[in-house]
């Protein structure tokens, strides 16, 4: 049986054969995964390449190709130092490292990029420079010199059942002909078992030097160059072993003679060569899966398990990085706003926008470990793990802290209720006061100016001198609210600015704390200082 998948890995192989034709690569963004569909594109120097870039995600993305050796994450993050200017440039970095870039594509937009690959072999990174995307959304254009392909390739097909290669010269030829694309292949639809093939062709070396041929086959095969046996891989076996043979060649054309037989089961034949100035170059229609660096590395759409929020919120209770607790409850809301609630401190742990969560870590294998938010612009308005309420002598007194993974004193977790649209309201007791904490989203935080609206309701006698802390950080008044610099933090290697806008009636700055005197109902709005409205409406 042929392995169907092998027929589709054609981009590089045909490049070897027909260099003049423009290669086309389909590059997509993966929905809710913050990744490109292709993370490695292989090409030859000075080759004409066409990238069909399609944004199949629900948020804007771009494609920025950079010079070899560029730190693309640093490049993307650097422009956040002057965010206003970055927005005007549609987040294309103003940097000489950029070779080529797409427009900023909105959801489901497409752009075709045609260009000539660099003359210098190397790894040229590409990246999405939208804020927060670069960590996971990147790949590389691998430019490598390749050797020439076969010419004048001719095949002879024989019938017979053997355990070793027979002397084909003494057998009658069943069928013969030229191989149009000059690539060794086994696509003989008339036979699946009990046949043999002999390929004869020419191969041209440009330099005087040592050349290495590689061969893998199921079942046996043997390669000769200029009448000398280079690789003997005879017998019944699978194609997992790659055999190599070295030969010294003078410049010019040489005779290529390859014998192969198939008895039963899988039928596969891979051939290639490498030599002075060029890396492994396939001579067969298929790549061997173990030829290092020569797989086109594609990510399966299902390699992640993104939880995609549609009409109603999704709840995901598991171990969530950065939430300040082992008892987190993540909620993804329609409108591209997500939170992680901390059921130890009874407070809002994280807010982020864009994609919600990837469940693959917890839903494959044993499911261990902590998973960070999938989206971007993660905020931590209430600090790492602090209770929401406190009785303070003065409003600017030190806010109490909950030890990591410890339940807050005097608080008791009661659970949550879902309304008809499945929006949760969290319940807990604070001493004798029964508290409910609910979240709604206004607008869309990816395609517009989305905001998180938090409503706390308290039932019971509120103690004197009680404050609710809406945020902590460096506070600046902005309109009717506050611009808060909550201080940078890091989750699993991703840095977050933690700057946000808070609006709450009665809120007052008290040192680093934005506090609200406790009353039966408290409403707070959290938003991002920079939304995407400007650049999306620009095109």
């Amino acid at each position: 049986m042929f392995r169907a998948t092998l027929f589709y890995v054609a981009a590089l192989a045909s490049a070897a054969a027909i260099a003049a034709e423009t290669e086309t690569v389909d590059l997509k963004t993966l929905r809710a995964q913050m990744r490109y569909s292709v993370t490695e594109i292989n090409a030859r120097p000075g080759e004409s390449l066409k990238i069909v870039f399609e944004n199949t995600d629900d948020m804007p993305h771009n494609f920025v190709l950079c010079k070899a050796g560029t730190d693309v994450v640093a490049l993307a993050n650097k422009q956040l130092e002057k965010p206003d200017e970055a927005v005007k440039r549609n987040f294309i970095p103003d940097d000489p490292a950029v070779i080529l870039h797409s427009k900023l594509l909105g959801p489901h937009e497409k752009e075709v990029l045609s260009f000539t690959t660099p003359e210098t072999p190397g790894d040229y990174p590409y990246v999405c420079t939208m804020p927060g995307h670069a960590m996971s959304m990147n790949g590389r254009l691998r430019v490598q010199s390749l050797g020439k392909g076969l010419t004048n390739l001719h095949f002879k097909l024989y019938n017979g059942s053997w355990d070793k290669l027979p002397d084909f010269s003494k057998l009658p030829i069943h069928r013969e002909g030229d191989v149009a694309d000059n690539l060794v292949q086994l696509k003989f639809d008339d036979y699946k078992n009990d046949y043999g093939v002999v390929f004869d062709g020419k191969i041209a070396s440009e330099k005087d030097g040592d050349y290495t041929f590689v061969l893998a086959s199921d079942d046996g095969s043997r390669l000769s160059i200029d009448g000398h046996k280079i690789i003997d891989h005879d017998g019944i076996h699978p194609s997992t072993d790659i055999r190599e043979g070295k030969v010294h060649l003078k410049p010019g054309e040489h005779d290529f003679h390859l014998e192969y037989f198939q008895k039963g089961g899988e039928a596969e034949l891979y051939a290639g060569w490498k030599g002075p100035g060029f890396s492994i170059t396939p001579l067969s229609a298929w790549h061997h899966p173990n030829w290092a660096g020569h797989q086109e590395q594609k990510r399966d759409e299902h390699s992640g398990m993104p939880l995609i929020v549609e009409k109603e919120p999704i709840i995901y209770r598991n171990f969530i990085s950065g939430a300040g607790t082992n008892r987190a409850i993540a909620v993804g809301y329609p409108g591209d706003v997500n939170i992680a609630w901390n059921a130890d401190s009874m407070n809002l742990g994280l807010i982020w926008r864009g994609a919600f969560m990837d469940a693959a870590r917890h839903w494959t294998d044993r499911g261990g470990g902590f998973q960070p938010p999938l989206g971007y612009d993660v905020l931590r308005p209430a600090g790492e793990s602090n209770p929401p309420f406190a009785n303070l002598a003065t409003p600017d007194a030190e806010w109490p802290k909950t030890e990591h993974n410890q339940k807050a004193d005097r608080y008791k977790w009661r659970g949550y209720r879902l309304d008809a649209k499945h929006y949760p309201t969290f319940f807990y007791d604070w001493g004798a006061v029964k508290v409910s904490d609910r979240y709604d989203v206004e607008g869309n935080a990816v395609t517009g100016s989305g905001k998180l609206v938090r409503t706390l309701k308290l039932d019971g006698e509120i103690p004197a001198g009680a404050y609710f802390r809406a945020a902590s950080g460096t506070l600046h008044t902005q309109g009717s609210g506050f611009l808060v610099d909550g201080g940078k933090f890091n989750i699993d290697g991703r840095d977050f600015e933690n700057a946000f806008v808070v609006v709450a009636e009665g809120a007052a700055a008290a040192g680093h704390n934005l506090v609200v005197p406790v009353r039966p109902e408290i409403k707070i709005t959290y938003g991002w200082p920079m939304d995407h409205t400007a650049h999306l409406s620009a095109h």
Partner: protein
Amino acid sequence: MKTSPLLAGFLLSAALVSNGAPELKESDYYKITTFDTPKETALEVSSMEFLPNNKIALGTRRGEIWIASNATDPSASNISYQNFASGQHEIMGLAYKDGWLYETNRYEVARLRDENGDGRASIFQTVADGWGVSGDYHEYAWGSPFDKNGDLWVLLCLTGSFTSEAEFRGWALRVKPDGTIVPTCSGIRSPGGIGFDADGEVYYTDNQGPWRGADNLQHLVPGSFQGHPGGNKWYSKAPNMGPRPPDPNTPSRLETERARIPQFVPPACYLVYVSIGNSASFIACDLSGGKFGPFQKQLFIGDQSQSNVCRVFLEEVNGVKQGVVFPFLKGFKSGLIAGKLDKSTGQLFVGGSDRGWGARGGKPYCFERVDWSGTVPFEVQEMRAKPDGFELTFTEPLNRESAEDLTHYKMREFTYIYRAEYGSPEVDSKIPKITAITVAPDNKSVRLQIDSLFKGDIHEIHVDGVRSADGRPVLHPVGYYTLNEIPAK
């Protein structure tokens, strides 16, 4: 397929004794039905509970609850599912009472209810959450159904195999109806399931590892120490349990340490490693009054690695539970985790997943049902300890001649090292001599007298040559009796 000479010889002799009658298989007595599962999800069943109106709630490792309707219907194609809840963290226990479905997840026991009649839970009310969660994946929390006192039990796996990094890891807790938590047993390692016997006594299965030579069935006696000292530091938070017991010595024998540690309750039954299972899971008691065959009030225990079910008969000797395990049924589609026996229909429902540990069966997850065909298999029904040996009771009358033949029985005794390292080989192996055989006048039971009985040993018995009156061999001719106590009479 090659047939080994040994196996060929066995098949030949079996065929001869049964006079050419076709040899009956497990599937002639118990039929496994595999249900389709909801397309939207991976139904990695990890907990199960019967609901009113012939419905079954299925909790999953992905934290969902699905409610299956018509699962008892003879035709598997009539099953339908409703998603009741999602977003929970690994639901390892479900229990139903008064219109509420109680779930035990990683963090808490919560009770769920559909308040608006749309089929989905709208309230998730925390009942009890008084235990620690370190963030280690191994810290599963297993929940029981309601016990005879109306309490729920929560079993807290250790942080890994050895230690307890968060409060009450390695303990069994009881949750009272008002949500109060009562620390109840120490010494838990890695539970795989919890269930009750016919009298409502509580048992759990624990898995091979440190201080566990093999998987076993443990009797959860309030106040007891169950064998793994990893969580003993939490005695400081459990004044009701009295002072912390001395830690066991290693390496040792369980029988030796049991004499040193008064709270130590020994395994009611070793689920002998590989022969019976590798990863013990659910406990289901047959209270169907005969609708599931001739094993009334016995316990059926699942295995997550071998995807099979074994059968345990227990008795109480000198106040300690002990008994015998037999193979029962194999061929399930994935590693079994949850199982319950419907006492009204006599159907055994099972489900599970192979994720993370690997299992036989070939499917990543499954929900299946076992129905008794109505034909009684010829099996050892019960095995009881006697002062000088054992008594075996059979499901069908014996061929007296075959039952009186001494060469038709083979026995071996062995135990495991009780130690801090992982697992144990079988040690202290002895071959006891069967000195006398007496077949009862009704031809239903056999008394074996043997020359040595050892407390703490597993007594393995093979009855390959014994035939029923109608010439059938024993379907599962091997059993393993864990002898904690020797009866006086």
